[in-house]
């Protein structure tokens, strides 16, 4: 009897497994579809009136101005650590003079945009998801609709526009602060001369280095804000739903930042 049941059992187990895999594939395809529709809709609403300039200004201050301390701190310590680390490596080859260039290139091309993007994902992505998620759960988004105000235009457009515009501004400042961090360490603890450090920095930096970083920053700003909006907008009910939305917003934004960083680097430097 056991001989007879065994194949049947195996068959159903296999079927169950296939079903499980198929189910999760379908589900992820579905969520990619839903997300794409959401992103498309949001972009269309950016270019169609009415606009809410006051709300945009508030988001610009919130996302841009209030993120300055966090991004600034990240940049200065990154620049300082870079100078220290490259010094320990480069002295072995008598290549100390390359430190200024390493700091300038790494900060402007990679570290300022990526680290600023990740910090802003934590700071802004989470707060957007929590705020919009709470509005969804307490029916405030439905209330907007019943008061003849389109929630995409009122809630989402100001945030994604502010994110896309302000992150490049933040990164430009982070570039300067980061290079300054490297400068401080090089001058005051490693004993470099001020003039030659700055000349080396200027000599190696090209327009494209800074520009590529700013384009990346704009993309990351869009990714962070749209992920916050998407997960908040589709938040499940209750405190747990909003909590999960916040987590998804930060995690998905961070991963998308790293993926799009690779793709954009490939586009710019190949």
């Amino acid at each position, binding site marked *: 009897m056991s001989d007879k049941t065994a194949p049947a059992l195996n068959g159903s187990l296999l079927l169950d497994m296939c079903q499980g895999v198929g189910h999760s594939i379908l589900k992820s395809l579905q969520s990619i579809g839903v997300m794409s529709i959401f992103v498309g809709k949001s972009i269309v609403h950016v270019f169609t009136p009415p606009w809410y300039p006051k709300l945009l200004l508030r988001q610009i201050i919130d996302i841009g101005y209030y993120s300055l301390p966090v991004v600034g701190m990240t940049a200065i310590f990154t620049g300082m650590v870079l100078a220290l680390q490259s010094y320990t490596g480069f002295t072995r080859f008598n290549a100390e003079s390359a430190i200024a260039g390493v700091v300038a290139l790494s900060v402007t091309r990679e570290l300022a945009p990526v680290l600023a993007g990740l910090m802003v994902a934590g700071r802004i992505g989470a707060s957007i998801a929590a705020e919009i998620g709470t509005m969804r759960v307490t*029916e*405030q988004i439905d*209330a907007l*609709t*019943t*008061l*003849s*105000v*389109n929630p995409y235009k*009122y809630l989402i457009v100001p945030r994604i526009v502010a994110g896309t515009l302000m992150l490049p501004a933040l990164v430009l400042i982070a570039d300067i602060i980061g290079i300054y961090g490297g400068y401080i360490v090089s001058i005051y603890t490693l004993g470099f001369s001020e003039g030659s450090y700055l000349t080396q920095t200027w000599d190696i930096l090209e327009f494209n280095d800074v520009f590529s970083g700013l384009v990346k920053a704009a993309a990351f700003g869009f990714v962070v804000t749209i992920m916050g909006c998407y997960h908040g907008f589709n938040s499940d009910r209750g405190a747990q739903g909003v909590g999960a939305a916040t987590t998804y917003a930060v995690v998905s934004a961070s991963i998308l930042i790293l993926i799009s960083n690779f793709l954009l680097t490939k586009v710019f430097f190949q």
Partner: protein
Amino acid sequence: MAITPKIAMRDVKKSFGEKVVLDGVTLTVNPGESLVIIGGSGTGKSVTLKCILGLIKPDEGSIQIDGKETTDLNARERDELMHKFGMLFQGGALFDSLRVWQNIAFGLIQGQHMNPKDAHDIAIQKLAQVGLKPQVADLFPAELSGGMQKRVALARAIATKPDIIFFDEPTTGLDPIMADVINDLIVDCVKDLGATALSITHDMHSARKIADHVAMIYAGKIIWYGKVAELDHSGNPYVDQFIHGRAEGPIGK
């Protein structure tokens, strides 16, 4: 000869995944009438309301407002239609980043582009209408008690002078006295505006007070419809069980 109903739903169906929520709802509300839909939790009351409002798109069936089909409207026509509607949400759904007067004036300023000064005056006037002092206008919703929030939400719902007002469980979460105050306010406001009202509730006291007609929804269908006076001798065992709040009867646990 026949008057065009304000709201006419015909055979509206809606499922979420495999779960059938509305299984062919047919319902008409005439101008100036107050209809209350009663029913237990999870029977489709809220979904019915959200379908009419256009917050949820039904899978099948027709919903007409003033004789005009609304299930296939585009975004702009839908916005236009929304001007006719006012809605009191269950939890109030006040915008917590805005002050009380900005909440009440929201539809006037953002939806109808009235200048903020005039809208402020109207907001104060509406506050008085729901029995609140002008000092409340500058507070934030979080600083108000539940009953006051409900009143402010009611003031917001009537501020744009809507044609049709929806009330979603207007008395849930309030003490009996405040619930009665809200019921009175609803009756007064609807009468004052000459509006058509559609409410959903499971509070029978509230239903008797604000309804002209009552419809009972069960398992996604309207199983009884009649005048509020007929409620007590409907002859329908489901209605009887519900209005008397009995655990035993045809409606299972």
